[in-house]
């Protein structure tokens, strides 16, 4: 018998052994369809969020259960559904494929690859909606998540497992902070490096492609997954995208890994949910959002956590992004998400256009839990940074009367100007934490006070380059010891003074 015959025999015997089962299914009938929403008769036993299949093969999700029928959102092309079409229950809630095979891929909220690099062979599925881990399963945030951005790591530190909102008007650099944070994770050792998940909600395909390209060029796709529901997708897919991204992240978190999930952005997510809710005829509330729009985001962000050591010690850090309109942080969705998260990074257009980038307004940006996770060395150097900058902001109105001011005030203004200059940072150039400690030390201890303002950034760049070249052990020591003891501090001082004497 040839090998081909053997294979045929095996297949034949398997088919013969196959025992077909009769199928008992619960069905309903489409009463009306339009705008991606179906109202159906029947399906009496349907559950909330249950998946249903239309006779055309299109899948839908039950979102309204009413007295005499159900409201279903269509997760595909609703043109294939007609009045009277049969709908079948699947008795399954929405789930998404998860696993290591997703790393480096771009997928849609249903887990289907959209990067043209072939199909993904999932070995595991996870429900998209799950209840967040409880108190017993968690532990307090204790490890830092370095963004590589001096202003954030110094003054608004983020811990692993934290939820930190990035909020600001359009074109103020919100996504840039998120991307820089992803790129910066490359500096972490592989065993500690977080898996990054970038969830693009309602963005242009072009923007997502550009983001993916930037990540690819910076070598960040090796540990990143992109989940994209672009503006051309129907609202239900936009609604699902952050939950899918979170479910993918949870798979890694429960395996004991650190995960960083970026939701870019939740304003569009809320808008998609508003569209669905209005079409499902749910009563509109403030700004026409439905009553449960708070729960929409709170149940998503509550899934970010630091698991206890007993549960593997994994973490899921969430960086949701909210776009404000004309600086209005008191609008409905911004206030909701501000109250849910553990702090916010507020980006201000006026700072952005004044050339202060990242345009972080340190006065109203805050991190409620990250302080305890901050590296001690960073806390030592950046402790006074926030208060110094706050005082500078108060005094800078008087800067134009410089000739009439006393020396103390002038010194404050001078220091503040240099600190603001020092905190400026180019895009896609996140810094190592030890480098941040070094330059912030120079700034807060007054080594920059007699440097010309226009030369501050040059000083910073050359100082870092010099230390990297001549004294890399100092940077290693900062990371290793995690705090500045007298010995390290002495070395830093000496290094800065040496460099400064040669700087011109």
């Amino acid at each position, binding site marked *: 018998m040839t090998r081909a015959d053997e294979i045929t025999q095996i*297949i034949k015997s*398997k*088919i013969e052994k*196959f025992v*077909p*089962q*009769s*199928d*008992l*299914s*619960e*069905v*309903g009938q489409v*009463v*009306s369809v339009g705008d991606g929403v179906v*109202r159906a*008769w*029947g*399906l*009496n*036993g349907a559950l909330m969020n249950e998946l249903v299949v239309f006779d055309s093969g299109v899948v839908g999700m039950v979102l309204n259960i*009413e*007295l*005499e*029928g159900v409201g279903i959102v269509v997760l595909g092309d609703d043109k294939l559904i007609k009045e009277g079409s049969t709908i*079948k229950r699947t008795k399954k809630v929405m789930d998404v494929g998860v696993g290591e095979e997703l790393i480096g891929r771009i997928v849609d909220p249903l887990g289907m690859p959209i990067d043209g690099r072939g199909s993904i062979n999932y070995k595991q599925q996870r429900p998209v909606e799950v209840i967040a881990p409880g108190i017993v399963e968690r532990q307090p945030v204790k490890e830092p998540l370095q963004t590589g951005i001096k202003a954030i790591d110094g003054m608004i530190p983020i811990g692993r497992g934290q939820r930190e909102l990035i909020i600001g008007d359009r074109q103020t650099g919100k996504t840039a902070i998120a991307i820089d944070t992803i790129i910066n994770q490359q500096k972490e050792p592989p065993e500690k490096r977080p898996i990054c998940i970038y969830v693009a909600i309602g963005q242009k395909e072009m923007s997502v492609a550009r983001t993916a390209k930037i990540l690819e060029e910076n070598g960040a796709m090796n540990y990143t997954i992109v989940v994209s529901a672009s503006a051309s997708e129907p609202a239900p897919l936009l609604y699902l995208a952050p939950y899918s991204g979170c479910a993918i992240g949870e798979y890694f978190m429960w395996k004991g890994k650190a995960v960083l999930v970026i939701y870019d952005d939740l304003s569009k997510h809320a808008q998609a949910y508003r569209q669905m809710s209005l079409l499902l005829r749910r009563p509109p509330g403030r700004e026409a959002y439905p009553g449960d729009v708070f729960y929409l985001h709170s149940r998503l962000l509550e899934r970010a956590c630091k698991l206890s050591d007993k549960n593997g010690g994994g973490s899921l850090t969430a960086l949701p992004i909210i776009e404000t309109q004309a600086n209005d942080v008191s609008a409905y969705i911004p206030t909701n998400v501000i109250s849910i998260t553990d702090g916010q990074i507020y980006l201000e257009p006026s700072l952005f256009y004044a050339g202060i980038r990242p345009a972080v307004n340190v006065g109203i940006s805050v991190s409620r839990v990250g302080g305890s996770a901050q590296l001690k060395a960073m806390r030592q150097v950046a402790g006074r940074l926030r208060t110094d900058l706050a005082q500078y902001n108060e005094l800078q109105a008087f800067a134009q009367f410089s000739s009439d001011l006393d020396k103390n005030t002038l010194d404050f203004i001078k220091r503040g100007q240099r600190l603001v200059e020092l905190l400026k940072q180019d895009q896609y150039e996140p810094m190592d934490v030890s480098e941040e400690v070094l330059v912030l030390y120079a700034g807060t201890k007054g080594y920059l006070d007699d440097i010309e303002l226009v030369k501050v950034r040059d000083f910073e760049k050359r100082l870092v380059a010099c230390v990297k070249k001549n004294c890399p052990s100092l940077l290693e020591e900062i990371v290793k010891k995690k705090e500045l003891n007298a010995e390290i501090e002495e070395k830093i001082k000496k290094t800065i003074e040496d460099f400064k004497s040669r700087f011109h």
Partner: protein
Amino acid sequence: MNLNDRVISKKYAMAYFMSSGEDEELKKNNLKKIINETADVMDYFINPVINLEIKLTILDRVISSEIKGSLSEKLFSILISTKRIALVESISEEFEKIYLDSKKMTQLELRAKYSLDDFEKKAISDNFKAVTGKTPVIKFVQDKNIIGGFLMKWDDKVFNSTINQKIESLKDKIISKEIL
């Protein structure tokens, strides 16, 4: 028909079922009879331009004497005056369901390629009753698309025991690599 009309039909059917004075069997037969007798003039009843008095006069003239004064005639008059006469067919269907439900019976649509003999029908009926606790009122539909076996539909459930379904199931298992 939209979802609201279905809900309204169900409410009218339930009210008609619960009203006293006539037994359910009589109500059911009278409703069917009045629908048959008024089929030719239904367009007049639905027409919003025609005066209500004229509609009621026509109704009085077309229905037979045995229905006059019955609950079905009263229901018909109410539906004409509330401009919901178009729902009468669906009310009748809903009434039928409520009636069968009260008798622990259900309508069962049975589909097969060839008509089933009495022995097969009885076997299906007995098994159905044993599983659901309801006696089926079988409506047989001959379906040439079925290769073999049979398919049953009742309430919002479908029991598919056709060869077509079994082939589909085998196909799915092969595609999902559960078999090969």
